[in-house]
């Protein structure tokens, strides 16, 4: 092509590109979701895993280790545990024996980290080191007198207290909270399935978290997902309070700083409605932000309005991880084998 033509065309291209970029900056601001102080930009391309190398089925739960790595469990037995770096690259993959891999908690015992995994198909809780070597297994709690057979125990979550005591919730079985010593000796059992709204009872006790936000009175936060409620119990199992979260079928509570975060699996039946979002409570357990959901509204009497999805960012969020920069990672169940999505905290 001739020199004059080339200059003309390059100039045109340059102008057009310049206009295009200006146009983008005006009309294409990256989407920001959430409310109040808890707002995020979405990065759906965070995870760099190759599905032909490191496939997933349901991404169930995630924890952050001391090296800042994101450890995730999936019920895909090709690699039940996947460990990512902050850039979403797979660092390690192991675990082939956990078809019901569901709950994942990390606990640091005097400098050594362990993973606590629940498996609702094996009816077991498994403690393993960071390379997947099993150090302890808790089977079905026959000696509580509440269980007749192994199949009734389908644990969904564990939480480890600072003294090493283990709390297990049987969220897909009989909805009990079972309290063990660090060595796995039974100490207490409470909760159990009940009628909707029955205080102290649980329906689909999907998750549990040790809540130390008030160090004078540490409590246990237990999900009662089918009731759309979060229940608080003292460490001895006595029931304290039920916090209604209408419309939110919450997964496990995750305490970070002064807040509690939940992945909300759905906000309306049926279970595959794809109507999930993320829920964030403040230190008074009031909803302050719903990334992907409606603006949270409390009426004059302090009653929370029914929550619902507004943006189809997620189908079925199953767990939320908060890193040390307050970014969120959301793992999903039954959403087309998708990998976790990253939400970058923005401070406006």
């Amino acid at each position, binding site marked *: *092509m001739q020199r004059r*033509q080339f200059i003309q065309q390059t100039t045109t*291209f340059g102008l057009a590109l310049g206009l295009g970029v200006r146009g*983008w900056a005006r009309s*294409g601001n990256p989407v920001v979701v959430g409310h109040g102080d808890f707002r995020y930009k979405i990065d759906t391309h965070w995870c760099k895993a190759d599905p032909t190398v490191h496939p997933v089925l349901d991404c169930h739960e995630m924890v952050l280790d001391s090296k800042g790595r994101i450890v995730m469990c999936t019920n895909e037995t090709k690699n039940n545990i996947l460990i990512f770096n902050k850039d979403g690259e797979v660092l390690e993959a192991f675990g082939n024996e956990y078809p019901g891999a569901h709950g994942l908690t990390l606990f640091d015992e005097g400098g050594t980290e362990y993973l606590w995994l629940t498996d609702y198909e094996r009816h077991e809780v498994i403690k393993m080191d960071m390379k997947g070597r099993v150090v302890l297994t808790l089977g079905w709690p026959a000696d509580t007198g509440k269980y007749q057979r192994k199949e009734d125990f389908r644990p969904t979550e564990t939480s480890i207290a600072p003294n090493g005591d283990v709390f297990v919730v049987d969220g897909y079985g009989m909805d009990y909270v079972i309290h063990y010593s660090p060595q796995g000796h039974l100490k207490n059992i409470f909760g159990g399935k009940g009628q909707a709204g029955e205080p102290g009872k649980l329906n689909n006790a999907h998750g549990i978290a040790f809540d130390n936000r008030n160090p004078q009175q540490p409590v246990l936060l237990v999900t009662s997902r089918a009731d759309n409620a979060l229940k608080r119990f003292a460490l001895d199992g006595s029931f304290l309070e039920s916090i209604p979260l209408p419309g939110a079928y919450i997964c496990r509570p995750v305490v970070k700083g002064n807040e509690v975060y939940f992945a909300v699996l759905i906000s309306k039946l049926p279970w595959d409605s794809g109507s999930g979002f993320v829920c964030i409570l403040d230190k008074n357990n009031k909803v302050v932000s719903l990334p992907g959901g409606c603006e949270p509204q409390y009426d004059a009497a302090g009653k929370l309005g029914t929550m619902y999805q*507004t*943006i*189809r960012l997620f189908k079925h969020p199953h767990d939320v991880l908060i890193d040390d920069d307050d970014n969120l990672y959301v793992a999903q169940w039954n959403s087309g084998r998708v990998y976790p999505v990253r939400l970058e905290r923005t401070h406006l």
Partner: protein
Amino acid sequence: MKIITFTYIGLLCGFTLGAQEFQLAPPQVNYASPFFESGTSVNMAFALEGAEIRYTLDGTDPGPQSPVYAGPLVLKESCVLKAATFHTSYRPSEPVAFRFFKQPMVERPDSFWLEQAPAARYTGKGALSLIDKVKGSANFGDGNWLGFEGKTLALHLFWNKKTKMKGLIISRLNDAGAWIFPPVQISVRGSTDGRSFITLLQKKLKTPDEGSPLLSGQQYDELHWPARKLRYLEVLIEPLQALPSWHQGKGAPAWLFVDEILIR
């Protein structure tokens, strides 16, 4: 030349379309009952800053030119309300549709009973649930739905006074994943003296194929017959006796879920 032009168009499109990566969820729609006598009020909500709800009442899908929702809608005629949400930073939601039925419905029967009881967990308030005009929700365990596993729903209605009737509306729920399928036959028989009955209508329904939208969600069957004055009515709804071969429960009887049977 052409390559450069197409590249810049591509870049331009890439920048501006990036913001529309996500779609909105549909609006919340609340109302007392889809069945009304003179009028009813519909409330819609969607608490997302900068979003709008647009709606139609003529059965067409709402678009950017449809009226914006600004407060409770008062409906005075039977219609289909369709609503969707819009926002400049997101793709519009799928429309949601709700049918509203203006009566007149006939007066409540003087007695009503079911020939066979529904399944133990889904008895509702018995035959009363079918005529109380209290709509069931999407949750078929909410106490307003009657569930029948493979058994025929046979509702008997009786009026002391001869009453003119010309049709009915059956409100049902489909949920193939929960083994709840449309019925295979609906028949209605009527009588003036309770001894000799005539068949007013008999409709066979084809079981939908796998993946059909008729296998999931609220459904209204509206059926008519030439108007007659009657005192007795029998409504028989027969469920599918054997789930199709593509279904995980193949060969087992399907469930039938009904919350209202209203006579016009």
